[in-house]
């Protein structure tokens, strides 16, 4: 008979035994060794029926198709731009994916994106060798002007965005800051200096407490926010493989729908 060794939502470390016997199935972030299932990463365990899944608590961003990321121009080539993506891999944006404008051959590409510019872009393709292609065609995909950037643990990004963007929308409304959250853990903010400070500390609170219950209320209290949070009844923290698709801002949702058609 199979036996579960850990509880749902437990924090586990690599090599830790999660279950014994053949009744349970090793899901993402876990593996079978003999008749045991062990953890393969530092993470939270999610028990879904007989499947054991591990939600990572840390780790650098790994580029995925359809992710909207914030990246920095590091090179301008004949046919486009190379970007640093806050991951192990750089990404390419070709002229044809950058804009619907007509760009003449040999035009000065730096007048669109110059070295050092931060750009919101969507990943269109990732090869097995991790060549990453980007597009900046789509609503909300653009060069970021002014403002400042912070880095967060990319595993906490879904929590910072919240369901349907509820969390980040609340922070935006409460602080009057413009905020763009990249799936790759870069967050851009622009507002009044004191307001930016408030927004950053709210984001840091979410990052540090992403695993606790009632986080939305906690952040709401911190911000002194009185409006509707726009989030359905608070549910247990759950993480789906495709959670990045819940990327909240309306503008991105629409561009994603276009892509699916």
């Amino acid at each position, binding site marked *: 008979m199979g036996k579960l060794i850990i509880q749902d939502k437990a*924090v*586990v*470390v*690599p*090599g*830790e*035994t999660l279950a014994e016997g053949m009744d349970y199935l090793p899901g993402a*972030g876990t*593996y079978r*060794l003999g008749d045991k299932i*062990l953890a*393969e*990463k*530092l993470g*939270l365990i999610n028990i879904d029926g007989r499947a054991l899944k591990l939600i*990572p*608590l*840390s*780790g*650098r961003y*790994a580029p995925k198709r359809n992710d909207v990321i914030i990246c920095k121009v590091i090179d301008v080539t004949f046919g486009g731009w190379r970007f640093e993506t806050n*991951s*192990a*891999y*750089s990404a390419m944006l070709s002229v044809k994916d950058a804009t619907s404008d007509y760009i003449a051959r040999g035009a000065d590409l730096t007048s669109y994106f110059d070295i050092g510019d931060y750009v919101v872009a969507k990943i269109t393709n990732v090869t*097995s*060798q*991790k060549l990453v292609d980007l597009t900046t065609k789509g609503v909300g995909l653009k060069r970021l002007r002014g403002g400042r950037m912070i880095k967060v643990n990319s*595993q906490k990004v879904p929590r910072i965005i919240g369901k349907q963007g509820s969390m980040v929308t609340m922070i935006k409304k409460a602080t009057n800051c413009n905020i763009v959250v990249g799936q790759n853990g870069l967050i851009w903010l622009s507002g009044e200096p004191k307001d930016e400070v408030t927004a950053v500390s709210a984001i840091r609170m979410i990052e540090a*407490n992403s*695993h*606790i219950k009632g986080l939305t209320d906690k952040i709401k209290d911190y911000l002194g926010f009185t409006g509707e949070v726009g989030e359905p009844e608070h549910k247990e923290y759950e993480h789906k493989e495709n959670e990045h698709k819940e990327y909240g801002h309306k503008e991105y949702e629409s561009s994603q729908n276009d892509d699916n058609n």
Partner: protein
Amino acid sequence: MGYAKRTNNRGFDELRKIEAKTGVIKNADGSAYFKIGNTAAYAAVYGPRNLYPKFLQNPSTGILRCSYNMMPFSGTGERVRPGQSRRSREISLVTEKALLPVVDLKEFPNAVVDVFIELIETDAGSRCAGICAASMALADAGISMKDLVVAISVGKVDDKIAVDLDYDEEAYEGGPVSDIPIAIIPSTGEFSLLQMDGEISKEDLIKALSLCKKVVPKLYEIQKKALSEKYTKSD
């Protein structure tokens, strides 16, 4: 006669006092501090990240690169000259080999995971402390790992087998001493680091390695606690 009582009053299977923490280097993707007795190591992990020069890249997997270094004032005698020595390079190599069996970097072709180990003070067992810290730092960095790696030294002092030798025991003059640093993968019991200085019989070596296994669960629990601590504190 023989070595009836350890010079440090510990039991023969007793470890020195251990202190372990993670997340100690804010810039790093993962980090840890591991102190056993008066031997203390910091480890910081950066990556997976870009690897240059390009000829070092491996298109089928990410690579692990370890660097062991003693701070100039950390040694038991004179100042250690900064920079790499033959000793530090060899320890970097065996550290890498000790960690490699558990680390899975297939998802990161052409990339590198850098592990920097710095010893702030040493009183024997520094490579083992470094490996313990590095293994925790890798887990803290969210690297995919089959297990943590636990490392400790064991040895024979005169006629007795003891774990976690300190500097005084390594320098014991009343009889032959052997010092055997090992690393173990707890879930399989396999050894991923095995070195020895001194002399020992085949039978005693097997005994020593078996004694070592006794302390592995204790070390694993300490590493586990340090890793999960920051996520399990209630608020």
